[in-house]
């Protein structure tokens, strides 16, 4: 939106003021996320920039909080860092265990959500689908219903059925929370899907299975993968359900962070936060690349 030549001086002024306001809002959006990165390298146990940090004195910075992520909860943190030390880390370090749980739960719930969600999206996008609107509303509702209500209901239900304190229980719950995202992204891909392609495949003698794997699948794959990433992030970031239905040895990263923030918010939390920000940057990049690929495949120019 370039400034038109007929703009009055007042409009010129507003043009720059408006840009400045937008810059401030962008700063508001991004600053809180970036601020944790330098602070996580603080040598002191504070949350502000020390004098040394501001003057870029290397002694003001340290990786001690990242180290703490490894040693916290270990049996013998001060031992020599050899194979035995690392196996101690792998076995006992609280954050490492939380990461393992997060990945296991995230992986399986994503798998479940993506498989069931994609299947359902294929059904929902067919014009002959009965009760389409109602079913869609039900399947999207886990995203809308406050998480505290879902978690409360799950607590009662899982306690009664013996699913509480099991990995299966958390995986199922997280899959449910991720499903709306899969449905939304996959349906969005299917909206632009040219159905004559399927008919063309059929007329060339392909059976429905071949058509699905050779034609439909490659075209909706970007949507499926971004849906899966959404589902994974949902699980990876979820804390309330874990708080309500998980056992103590099923702590995930957000659950561990929740404890840390409430009790003693040490810069160790900031180092976890930094790692998570890097993870989210990686995910965002992947989704963005997928979106472009999808647009290219469907012949929409990226402009």
């Amino acid at each position, binding site marked *: 939106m370039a400034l038109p030549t007929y703009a009055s001086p007042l*409009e010129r002024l507003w043009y720059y003021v408006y840009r400045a306001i937008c810059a401030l809002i*962008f700063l508001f959006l991004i600053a809180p996320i970036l601020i944790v990165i330098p602070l996580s390298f603080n040598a002191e146990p504070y949350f502000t920039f020390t004098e040394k940090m501001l003057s870029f004195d290397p002694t003001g910075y340290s990786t001690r909080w990242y180290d703490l992520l490894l040693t916290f909860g270990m049996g013998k943190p001060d031992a020599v860092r050899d194979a035995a030390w690392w196996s101690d880390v792998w076995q006992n370090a609280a954050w490492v265990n939380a990461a393992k749980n997060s990945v296991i739960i995230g992986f399986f719930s994503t798998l479940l959500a993506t498989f069931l969600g994609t299947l359902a999206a294929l059904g929902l996008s067919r014009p002959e689908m009965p009760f389409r609107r109602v079913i869609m*509303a039900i*399947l999207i509702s886990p995203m809308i219903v406050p*998480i*505290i209500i879902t978690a409360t*209901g799950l*607590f009662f239900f899982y306690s009664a059925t013996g699913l509480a304190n099991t990995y299966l229980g958390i995986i199922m719950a997280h899959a449910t929370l991720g499903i709306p995202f899969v449905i939304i992204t996959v*349906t969005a891909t299917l909206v632009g899907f040219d159905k004559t392609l399927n008919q063309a495949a059929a007329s060339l003698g392909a059976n429905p299975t071949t058509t699905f794997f050779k034609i439909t699948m490659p075209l909706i794959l970007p949507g499926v993968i971004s849906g899966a990433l959404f589902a994974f992030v949902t699980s990876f970031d979820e804390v309330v359900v874990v708080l309500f239905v998980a056992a103590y040895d099923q702590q995930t990263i957000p659950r561990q962070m929740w404890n840390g923030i409430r009790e003693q918010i040490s810069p160790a939390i900031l180092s976890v936060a930094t790692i998570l920000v890097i993870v989210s940057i990686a995910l965002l990049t992947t989704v963005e690349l997928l979106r472009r690929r999808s647009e290219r495949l469907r012949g929409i120019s990226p*402009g």
Partner: protein
Amino acid sequence: MSDASHDSVQSGPLTTADGKPLKAALASAQAHRTRRAFYLVAPLLFFVVITFLMPIGQLLTKSVNNPAFYSWQDRDTGEKIPLMVDLRAWFDAHPAGTGPDEAAYAALVTGLVHAKEVKAQGQIGTRINYEVSGSRSLFTKTARKADKLEPPYKEAVLDVDKDWDDPKLWNSMRNASKAFTIDFYLSALDRTRDDSGNIIKADEERAVYILLFERTLVMSALITFITFLLGFPIAHLLATLPLRHSNLLMIFVLLPFWTSLLVRTTSWIVLLQSQGVVNDIWVSVGLISDENRLQMIYNQAGTIIAMTHILLPFMVLPLYSVMRPIDPSYVRAARSLGATSWTAFRRIYMPQTIPGIGAGGLLVFILAVGYYITPALVGGSTGQLISNLIAFHMQNSLNWSLAAALASLLLFAVLLLYWLYDRLIGIDNLKLG
């Protein structure tokens, strides 16, 4: 459908190659396709019914049914044992408002003796204690002595504790012995019952839930409004810049969207706490003195700031998707017809963005109403929302029926908004990223 295309031309009703009437064949093909579509959705629907709808159904049941007074589950065998059988029979035989007579007291004593045997007296007492404070010890104390009591029971029981003739207590027991009760909804709406069982307002000192519901709605509305104020300018900027630039700037919106909620909440704690970065900056530039650092967190302000930040992308993205396709030539036409830039914006541009404002506003509001994590971490005492109270009753006071009643009310409000969203915008139009 490929079968249908093979039919040959002939006289009489149209039939398919194998002789079926075409109309029936088409109908059956249609039904077949409908079934096929449904089979694709069925597994997920079944899954969501199990992991989502049934748990919520159970929650609703809990809010109107609390069997603690009349049923005990043996912890070793899992067997369900009825409690207070005689007293329940007495309640059935006598209408509400009847004062307890000797038979009632006798039934009470029998019930307590039995409860003591199976160790259910604490559970019974706790159930009544929700409504009549202090009755827990009344039950445990009396149960301890119950097997030694002798008729006349009324006198004997009143000898143990004179509080037993409190009509409120008897009303509460009567209500607690019913399988269906609305009392937890009454509590959730700051109502209670008086001595004769009429519904009245709760003490002002104890009324909190309506206040919290109101606060939740007001704060959510405020947050929605702020996200609109902040979201509109940048969505407009993103929509009017060339795609190459706007895609780059879009990262500023999408990165927060993809970043963990807990990370963002942590960041705000770091920024806003009294020894935090923002206060430090203000002290160092001399805006405030070191002693008078601002309290920006652990109160309403903290909740509002952090939630606005977290929900802002949910406002920007729908706005952007509506603004992007708006043709700039309409505004140019208005200008050329003599409108000032403000008038052109207000009369021509703004109305075209209404669907985006509606979608973003409703979405942000719906999400805000149910927020739990952020207020719990940065809300202090005044920045708590209704969700936090539900969690309190789930995890601290363990009054699960009250938690369920509060949750049901919140659920009802959210579903209403969701329905509205579906009506006005359509769930199909929900887009991510």
